């Protein structure tokens, strides 16, 4: 999404000048997707980041714009190393570079590790991301419990199928909820997406190859919206989500259909592909 996120490589100057207050990304309160339309304001804000602090704050106190997702850490802060094996290595075994790196880190400033990142063997970044996307109002406890109940529901359904199946089919039935989850999301990722590009006063939907992150995001977003909206009022999220995940695992179901619709629209708008300049 070139218009709404400026890669840092294009503005090396700005990174240093942002030492004191980090990189504010102003977003409209209360909305996420349409907030990206505040891009021009954001761009302007970044362009002015060389200005005095007071002026910048005035810009960002525009009505409806609050700063979210900014990092208070300057560029000198390094990411923490969350890995038990790294710290368990006895000093004798370290190579020259590793020794040097260890000594260096003793003097460097290190960011605090986020609460969700643990050195647990059961941690999975995809599951964490999905849980965060399911979370509403900061209620991580609820989101996590829904996630665990979903995984349990998927497992129990697969076990039932396993016990009901014959010996040959048993080899094909996958019972690990984590592989099912990963495979389902992978199956839901679109390959190509549509981007609105302004030409001659009109917005045209132009087919564009999507990056990895955008694809993963879209897959998870579609899954969650589908499960929130298209279910019976009394049906619980884990039940619906487990059902959708199993269908997506077998390349069926509404989320896969949405992915195919996206592909078809991109195919239909193939003529507009030359509007893309990157």
């Amino acid at each position: 999404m070139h218009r709404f996120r400026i890669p840092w490589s294009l503005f090396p100057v700005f990174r240093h000048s942002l030492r004191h207050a980090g990189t504010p990304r102003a977003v409209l309160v209360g909305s996420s997707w349409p907030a990206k339309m505040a891009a021009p304001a954001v761009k302007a804000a970044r362009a002015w980041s060389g200005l005095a602090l007071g002026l910048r704050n005035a810009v960002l106190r525009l009505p409806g714009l609050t700063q979210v997702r900014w990092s208070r850490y300057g560029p000198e802060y390094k990411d923490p190393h969350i890995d038990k094996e790294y710290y368990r290595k006895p000093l004798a075994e370290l190579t020259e570079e590793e020794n040097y790196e260890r000594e260096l880190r003793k003097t460097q400033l290190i960011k605090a590790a986020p609460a969700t990142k643990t050195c647990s063997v059961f941690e999975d970044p995809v599951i964490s991301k999905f849980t965060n996307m399911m979370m509403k109002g900061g209620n991580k406890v609820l989101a996590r419990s829904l996630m665990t109940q979903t995984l349990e529901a998927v497992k129990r359904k697969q076990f039932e199928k396993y016990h009901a199946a014959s010996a040959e089919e048993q080899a094909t039935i996958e019972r690990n909820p984590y592989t099912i989850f990963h495979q389902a999301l992978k199956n839901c990722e679109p390959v190509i997406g549509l981007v609105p590009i302004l030409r001659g006063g009109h917005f045209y939907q132009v087919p564009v190859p999507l990056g990895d992150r955008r694809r993963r995001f879209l897959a998870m977003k579609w899954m969650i919206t589908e499960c929130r909206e298209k279910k019976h009022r009394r049906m619980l999220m884990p039940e619906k989500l487990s059902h959708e995940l199993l269908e997506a695992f077998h390349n069926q179901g509404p989320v896969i259909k949405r992915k195919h619709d996206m592909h078809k629209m991109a195919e239909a708008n193939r003529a507009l592909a030359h509007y893309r300049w990157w």
Partner: protein
Amino acid sequence: MRERSGTPNLHELDAGHFLHTGSQAPQNLAAHLDNQVPVESPRAVSRTSESDPAKHGEQHEGQHYNIPLQDLKAVFPHGLPPRFVMQVKTFNEACLMVRKPALELLHYLKNTNFAHPAVRYVLYGEKGTGKTLSLCHIIHFCAKQDWLILHIPDAHLWVKNCRNLLQSTYNKQRLDQPLEASIWLKNFKTANERFLSQIKVQEKYVWNKRESTEKGSPLGEVVEQGITRVRNATDAVGIVLKELKRQSSSGIFHLLVAVDGVNALWGRTTLKREDKSPIAPEELALIYNLRKMVKNDWHGGAIVLTLSQTGSVFKPRKAFLPQELLGKEGFDTLDPFIPILVSNYNPKEFESCIQYYLENNWLQHEKAHTEDGKKELLFLSNTNPGQLERLCAYL
């Protein structure tokens, strides 16, 4: 033949852990001989083929024994914890771990003197330690020994969220609970079919102008009356309890009174009358009759009770001791009783539980098979059986 889980790193398992790996040779041999697991390698043993609770002893501690599914339906129409029921459905088998508190209770029950008044045993412990499943183990034992099981699965269900309270016809001061009573009667009938025709009622009971039960008719008729005429269900329950108490001393049958969540009988209820005034437990006919049952003024059986904070009303979350949960009134009524503490798994039981899950391929996460994964499970669950079950459910 179920597919065994991948390579569960047996060598690391056996190195530091407390399972049968040669330390007590003769018992070990005996345990091995009656085991389903072949003895080629010193595997961790989590199952035993001894499915009669009467023969469970010290050597079976920490091992799972199998209850056939037909027995399960016959002995436990109600009373199993809901998560255990889900586990039975998923695994297609019901396996219960043999643990110390249950073994202790079995020992006492085997040596009961039926001429003495019924002894009260109270299972207490923190949340999730296995009190209800220990109670189920005892009930299975008594069912195999052909005792009459009077099992109230959860007394808390009778003191909260009850609709349709009727004023009792027998005693104007008390209140009836037709729904709960009729459900309980149905389950009681399923569990004790064979006794209902043998035991005869010793009094005439008049239900209303047209219906009455004559003296000498089988108890089954009273139960039927309670199930069909829901209005009289509570009175039917009261009659059943009274008759069983009276006749248990005669020696035809041994009576086991098993109540889960007995702290509901004393304390408060969440029920209110139409004028919003609170109802005390003794004003409910079911509770009143059950309290009489739990007194030790009869002989010919035993009373096994379980305390439970989980379903309780107006009790703090951390309370688990008898004094805290029963309150002064309850404690004084139950005094004297034999308290039996049910605690978290010891390392051997923990390993056995993990092994059982691995054998059933329940732990699907690849890291769960490793030593690190096991250590993490131990830490996260704090060896609490309930927590461990919930953790392993999604791993």
